[in-house]
């Protein structure tokens, strides 16, 4: 494809300007501010600062609570990405078939994405409330499993992952469906003629061809699990019980906005930024190589 040439030299910059401004105001400026504050100890009102060098970082990295929070986040992201993506892919493949009423199914599956995290949290919180939630009560009656996300740490993390996956379900399905519908039918027909069954067709043809979509969703879900689940945690578990669901973003909120240790919280946001950047680069480096672009 040849490069498109703009006759006007200023127009491209003008067209780019709004996005550049948005990035500067909402990303670069706050990030620079965080980087600056991360080497200070700051008073709650923010009027007094003491330069402490890298102390905030060394303290974080030697803090048992922070390392625990990191572990919890990694576990949480692992569950959300692995199970969330698998479930969405299976559902998308099923929804992609020409079943009766499939339009309704598709619409229903995409629905959760339209809800705010707060509402998703409320719905799941009520449903799984150990004392009066229908989900928890039925689970106990039929399986004997005591699912108390308010006092049991494992239950709490699973509960949160479940709600987070459900919330992301619609987003994943939209992309998987779009990917599935964009697949070249000739290849699938050829495979059928060669006598491949549905299983083989899926693994040998569909799945490799779908890899750009899967890879994109892999990145998006990882970012989601690390960054965007704050609302969910805030409204359901509040990081508890104990530290069981104290994800990195929530820990940052607690230190920054509840305890008002702005410097310490800024250091955490810098670490979080580094982690996610590294993760994304690694994904593009290694997972990206295996992706087959048509």
């Amino acid at each position, binding site marked *: 494809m040849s490069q498109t040439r703009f006759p006007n030299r200023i127009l491209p910059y003008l067209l780019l300007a709004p996005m550049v401004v948005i990035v500067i105001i909402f990303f670069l400026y706050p990030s620079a501010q965080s980087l600056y504050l991360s080497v200070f100890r700051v008073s709650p*009102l923010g009027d007094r600062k003491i330069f402490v060098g890298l102390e905030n970082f060394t303290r974080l990295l030697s803090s048992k609570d922070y390392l625990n929070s990191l572990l919890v986040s990694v576990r949480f992201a692992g569950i959300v990405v692995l199970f969330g993506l698998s479930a969405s892919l299976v559902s998308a493949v099923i929804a992609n078939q020409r079943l009766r009423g499939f339009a309704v199914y598709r619409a229903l599956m995409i629905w959760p994405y339209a809800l705010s995290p707060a509402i998703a949290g409320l719905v799941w919180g009520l449903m799984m409330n150990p004392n009066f939630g229908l989900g928890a009560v039925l689970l106990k009656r039929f399986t004997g499993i005591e699912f108390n996300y308010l006092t049991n740490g494992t239950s709490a993390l699973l509960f949160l992952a479940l709600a987070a996956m459900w919330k992301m379900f619609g987003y994943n399905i939209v992309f998987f469906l779009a990917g599935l519908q964009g697949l070249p039918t000739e290849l699938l027909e050829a495979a059928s003629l060669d006598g491949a069954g549905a299983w083989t067709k899926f693994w040998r043809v569909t799945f490799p061809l779908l890899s750009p979509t899967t890879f994109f969703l892999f990145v998006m879900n990882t970012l989601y699990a690390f960054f965007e689940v704050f609302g969910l945690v805030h409204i359901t578990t509040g990081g508890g019980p104990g530290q069981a669901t104290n994800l990195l973003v929530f820990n940052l909120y607690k230190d920054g906005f509840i*305890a008002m240790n702005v410097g310490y919280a800024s250091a955490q946001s810098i670490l979080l930024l580094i982690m996610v950047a590294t993760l994304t680069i690694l994904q593009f480096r290694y997972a990206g190589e295996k992706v087959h672009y048509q």
Partner: protein
Amino acid sequence: MKLRQFQILFSLMLVFAMLLTACAQATPAPTEEPAPATTEEPAPAATEEPAPAATEEPAPAATEEPAAPAETVEITFWHAMSGSREEIVNGIAERFNATHPGIVVKPEYTGSYAETVTKGLAAYRTGTAPTIVQSYEVGTRTMYDSGAIVPVYTLNTGDVDWEEVVTPIRKYYTLEGNLPCMPFNSSTAMIYYNKDMFEAAGLDPNVPPTTWDDIESMSKAIMDAGLATGGLSMGWPAWIFEQMFAYHDQLLANNDNGRSAIASEVYLNSEFGVKMMTRWQELADDDILVYGGREYAANDPFLAGQFPFLVQSTSSLGGILKSATFKVGTAFLPRLGDEYPQGNSVIGGACLWVFDSATPEQQAAAWEFFKFTFSTEEAITWHKGTGYFPTSVSAYEQLKTEGWFEEEPNHATAFNQILGGADTPASNGVILGDFVTIRDIVGAAIEEVVVNGMDPKEALDKATADTNQVLADYISLLP
């Protein structure tokens, strides 16, 4: 083609969503607080409030001439009272506005306690602070040291005798000899117990436990009878741990618990602290003490009839009486035996602070409002509506003569507990800098001991070291 359209539509939606979030982030200040700009110019304020004050005024000139309302002082009041409490706060403000021409109090719910304090300080920096902000007890030192407040005792024009404030409440908030804020809603902790379970187990429901040993033996009797799966759970365990220090007259920090000067050292791992924590661990090992989270989740097993005992804030009383399907008894906090002197239980709740960014007129108006909330009548309404202590002694006397405590003996328990206790720096409770973080540290230590079986001394040594570090950091930032 269809797919293409879909993609375009989807990307448009994404852009739209991003714009929305961008807008939401861009303009928090103006949407939350449109008023303060107008407070300096009283004229537009009068258009918003169609003169509830003016109707009281006999001189009708004010309603016609826009120049006259210059006397109207508008003050905003940010608070964290949600649900039915918000209605009660609004009620106080309405009655105040109706009886105080020239002053308009505007209460605004600004989220949880923590959010209210954070927002208040953030607004102060940008020059949009309210006149009055409510801060929870752990925010006391932060507010006091912020340099952004006018101490309430300086506003007192001699018309309130501080001795009229119920002593343990006054003493809790007193720093360096004076009250920096106006006590508003106060509670403490006590034992709740299930009287039906007592009867079923053959115990006298009118003889509640008084010591941790009683809790142990009574729980065992009830559990052995197959009536309960555990003995007790505790709400706000880190706060209960503080309560235990004060209740046994043990200092928790130096400088008279941080009252004569700011505390720089805590005694969490004192002989008493270790003994208390060890006792809790023993109870946990026998399945009597069951960890119930850091806030109110502890109420659930008690309400579900699974445990006979609950140690919780008195502010839960109304809710518990409403939802319990059994007879609820209340009692004083349990003691660790007689070797330690009797102290007092500690006040929790919140206090009202005045920002120094308010004009002198607004500060005077805030004081008028404080006096109003402190009046016998309002204090009684507040107590009956919320279950919080009435702050004034005369309100307490009035309730007593009315026979309210005989009707509601459970409301009397907490009161008798704080009024019957000692008045020493140790029993007035501790005030610490960055108290939020410290409660978190102590909460984690309790979890380690009670849930994970860590050695109490080891856990408390670590908590003490961590807390002292937090205090040193806090002090380093003071002017």
